[in-house]
């Protein structure tokens, strides 16, 4: 017998993501989900912006990792609350895991939540966690062809960071090749060239984060 149905397979996790979103909205917490390959510098970037923002905002971090706690330890040094999620091999965070992590955080005293997704450029984009904004983190050593090869991250992100620009002199990196697919897919995409090593560009990126928080407040 043939049964015709149309059911969203991820409906359960979509509901959990919506519940997360509600929990965060009710407490006026703005959330940012950082997606990028292993080694793109997501943790260093989050540490840099925490240093700039923690005077003005109460920040917490959810740290997704395949198996280790190393990144969570780095974040913990900034003295903001951090919850580590080990995905035990899964290549992405999902809404369920994030929901559980939220239970571990002092939500009543948080303004901004940073979520560092598992190091992977593809899979995390398919899963809504309930966050406000996805940020794609790419880096110079990965090559100028990342946006062309992984257009999905460009489509999913509201902002893109090109990290490790202090390494531009050492790599054959054609900025035109990097930018042209982004401009084609998302002409208004903000792209931030930064170096967590020298601090270059971090202020512009932090200003953008703040503008996103303010914009939410204005609603």
């Amino acid at each position, binding site marked *: *017998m*043939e*049964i015709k*149905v*149309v*059911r969203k397979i991820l409906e359960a996790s979509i509901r959990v993501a919506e519940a997360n979103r509600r929990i965060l909205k009710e407490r006026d917490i703005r959330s940012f989900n950082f997606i990028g390959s292993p080694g793109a510098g997501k943790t260093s970037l989050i540490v840099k912006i925490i240093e700039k923002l923690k005077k003005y905002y109460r920040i917490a971090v959810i740290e997704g990792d395949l198996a280790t706690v190393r990144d969570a330890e780095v974040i913990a040094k900034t003295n903001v609350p951090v919850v580590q999620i080990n995905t035990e091999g899964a290549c992405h965070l999902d809404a369920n895991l994030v929901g559980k992590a939220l239970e571990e955080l002092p939500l009543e005293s948080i303004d901004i939540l940073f979520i560092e997704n598992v190091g992977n450029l*593809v899979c995390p984009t398919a899963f809504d966690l309930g966050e406000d904004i996805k940020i794609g983190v790419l880096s110079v050593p990965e090559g100028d062809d990342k946006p062309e090869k992984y*257009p999905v991250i460009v*489509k999913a992100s509201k902002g893109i960071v090109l990290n490790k620009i202090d390494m531009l002199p050492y790599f054959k990196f054609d900025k035109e090749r990097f930018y042209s697919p982004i401009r*084609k897919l998302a002409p208004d995409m903000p792209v931030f060239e930064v170096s967590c090593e020298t601090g270059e560009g971090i202020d512009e990126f932090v200003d953008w984060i703040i503008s996103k928080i303010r914009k939410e407040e204005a609603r």
Partner: protein
Amino acid sequence: MHEFSLAESLLKVALEEAEKHGASRILRIRVRAGKLMGVVPELLDFAVKSLSEGTIAEGAVLELEEVEFKGHCRNCGAHFSVEDFWEVCPRCGSDEIDISGGNEFDLIGLEIEEGEIEDGNKGCKEDP
């Protein structure tokens, strides 16, 4: 490699639907996936095979239908379907196209064998 978690959700939904219809076996599972889901068909197939062992979906054939993106030309206003991100408008050749869709991941059909002890009243416990 997120196919295992996708397959897990897929099987859960398929088994629910099969139970609603009093199935004793699932023979075929039809799925529609948008390109943003980044599904590798062989991996999803493998994941469904592995995870369905010991359930009534064991041995079921997975039929995966890929949904293309929808394109809209900012230059001439044409609507068309898009296979990959770098296409140009088929009408005017402009590369200024907006791409949407791709988030679909839907169960669209099941082929089942009905159970022998089907009473026709499954899921209607309140029936007099």
